[in-house]
């Protein structure tokens, strides 16, 4: 194990001597966390809306003012007639065109059904669905208000008071949800990319051969390569968590020790995987693309951007093989819900087995003799 020390020494020196890489290793993830957390939001607001009010009545005005005062909508135009026949959807200016028909007020007063029409740019199906939901809820509100004002509410019907509670993220702050996940993504990316390029870089410059004729053991070699990046990973994670707390005010409900303990094992998995990629690649370019490929699959199947529960069964089964999934789960459960050791023991168990398999493979696949 004495040899191990010398490998560490060398790797650390090489990392800290590379002035081009240093800021990328330490600054980039932090900057990305700060910036991208603001971008990564499905919070829908400021939906650009065009209104064609063919009725021009006081009730139609009331409805429009409801839209205008909502933060979800941003009214671009409010015209009495359909001037351009949906042109603003075509150019991408408006996302919704809402048309209020003639006789809107008359029909309502006479208790006749009336029909609004909405044209929606549905290219982004998800956003379109959410926008329509909001648009309709405003119409429902309008309807309820009107009924209440006129005293038309059902008097003898049943009533159920529904209290709808939003646990774990009462303020519905999307960043609470995304920041922990993004942090996992950034730490994983740093880990897998740095390690996947490490061994293959020594292959490219030829120093690997010099190492292979030394009596160094394969395990010493792999651990020596892994450990420095493990430290970097833990450091970036700690830095990221501090930012999550100080900048984004992410609640930390559960014990952070769980997060760190998990990260210790998790990083071994990610870094081991990077080293395997590196061992099997011929050029840095190749290893980079392979690492990238894995990262994409991991991210898409991690539940970071879209909930795992929404996936079809086979895809949900696939996520069980994804280490990123388990870390994101731990982060969110511990930080937001205050999960305890007992709640997440399954995640530890799985990642532990993963770690043993991956690193055993990394040692086995690395060849000192061809």
């Amino acid at each position, binding site marked *: 194990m004495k040899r191990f020390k010398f490998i560490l020494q060398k790797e650390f020196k090489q990392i800290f001597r590379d002035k*081009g*890489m240093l800021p990328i290793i330490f600054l*980039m993830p932090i900057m990305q966390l700060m*910036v*991208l957390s*603001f971008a*990564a*939001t*499905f919070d829908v607001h400021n939906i*650009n809306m065009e209104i064609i009010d063919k009725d021009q009545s006081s009730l139609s005005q009331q409805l429009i003012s409801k839209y205008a005062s909502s933060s979800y909508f941003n009214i671009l135009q409010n015209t009495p007639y359909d001037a351009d026949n949906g042109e603003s*959807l075509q150019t991408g200016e408006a*996302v919704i065109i809402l048309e209020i028909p003639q006789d809107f007020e008359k029909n309502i007063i006479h208790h006749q*059904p009336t*029909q*609004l*029409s*909405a044209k*929606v740019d549905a*290219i*982004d*199906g998800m956003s*379109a669905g959410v926008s329509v*939901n909001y648009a309709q809820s405003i*119409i429902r509100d309008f*309807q309820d208000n*009107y*009924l209440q004002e006129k005293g*038309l509410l059902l008097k*003898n*019907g*049943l*009533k*159920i008071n*529904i209290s*709808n509670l*939003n*646990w774990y993220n*009462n303020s*519905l702050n*999307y960043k*609470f*949800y995304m920041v922990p996940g993004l942090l996992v993504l950034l730490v994983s*990316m740093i880990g897998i*990319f740095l390690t996947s390029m490490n061994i293959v870089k020594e292959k490219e410059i030829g120093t690997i051969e010099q190492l292979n004729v030394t009596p160094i053991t394969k395990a010493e070699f792999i651990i020596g390569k892994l450990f420095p990046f493990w430290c970097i990973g833990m450091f970036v994670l700690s830095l990221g968590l501090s930012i999550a707390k100080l900048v984004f005010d992410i609640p930390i409900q559960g014990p952070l020790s769980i997060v760190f303990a998990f990260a210790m094992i998790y990083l071994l998995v990610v870094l081991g995987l990077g080293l395997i990629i590196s061992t099997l*690649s011929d*050029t*840095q370019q190749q290893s*980079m693309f392979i690492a*990238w490929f894995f990262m*994409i*699959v991991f991210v*898409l*199947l991690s539940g970071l*951007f879209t909930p795992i529960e*929404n*996936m079809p069964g086979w*895809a949900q089964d*696939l996520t069980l093989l994804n280490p990123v999934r388990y870390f994101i789960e731990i982060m969110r*459960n511990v930080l937001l819900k205050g999960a305890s050791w007992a*709640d997440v023991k399954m995640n530890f168990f799985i990642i532990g087995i993963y770690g043993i398999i991956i690193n055993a493979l990394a040692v086995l696949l690395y060849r000192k003799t061809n």
Partner: protein
Amino acid sequence: MDRLKGIIKKEFYHIFRDKRTLLILFGIPIVQIVLFGFAISTEIKEVKVALLNQSKEVSSHQLVNKILSTSYFKVDEILENEEAINTSFKKGRIKAAIVIPPHFEEDILKNKEAKVQIICDASDPNTGTQIGAFLEGQIQSFLYENAQKTFGSSPPIQINTEIQMRYNPELKSAYTFVPGLITIILMLICTMMTSIAITREIETGTMEVLLASPMHPSIIILGKVIPYLALSFSIAVFILFLGKFVFGVPILAHFGLITFEILLYCLVVLALGIFISTVAKTQQLALMISLFALFLPTMLLSGFIFPIHNMPLPLQMVTKVIPATYFNIIIKALMLKGATISEILKETLVLAGMFVVLVGVSIKRFNIRLG
């Protein structure tokens, strides 16, 4: 011209010799399309809920049956007490809990007014609130049906909304991700591959050999870039075909216009790759810059995953310097809206401008580096 051909040939050899990279370049779009198309869904279904029914009488069962009558919800756990709710959430299995209090039946019969509690896991606010709204809706329709049974009356006013989903009537997610994927993949190949290809030649010293030849540096760069242009273009066509024939995403605009815009975008991102190679000294650095400075921001800021209009204003400004933002608008308008050149003129001009600036700056930096 022959010299240019020589370099192009050599670069193609590099590309086709490295079978693994080539495989991955075509493999990434396929895997992404499969995952995005089949696995990634924002549609909520079969949400696991926990039920704490403290009443256990007829009307509470009626209510529960009504709530569970859709395919949206599935009872995962029947709870016995309130403490169990928290535990159940923390295990991360359920997304919502429904609590019916002990005197539900009595309240309904005597007071005509009862209470129900819906607790959602709002750590993911979108999913949380959506589930909450669905559950609420189910309870509302329970009441409505109840009222109809008792009074047989319909509500006094009725405002219906006819909704027309333009361009993507079935709200298929393929409609967003196929164009988005073209944007991202082209960026990856053109920028990353070229920046690496050039820095590799500098690192291994072969660049000096090339520069010492009687060829003009611009011919050398051009020769290195053209194969990647061809490769990217074929991958773009490949994705377009996958999108059209596997997911039925339409391609409405004129083929010539689409080709032109794809080539323009390729040129911009290629120029970006060249620019990176004038900044980065090693392959590793070029890779890391491409990856962190370009890939993640492009994916998150170009409107590929997250709509730009939701972002805070300063970030919206940032999205304006990303070429992918414009191409994303262009390619969606072309494929799905069948746009003509006049409708995307502004974006096209911005891309052209970016190309000119990037090439200009790169030439300047390249000269400094060599001189």
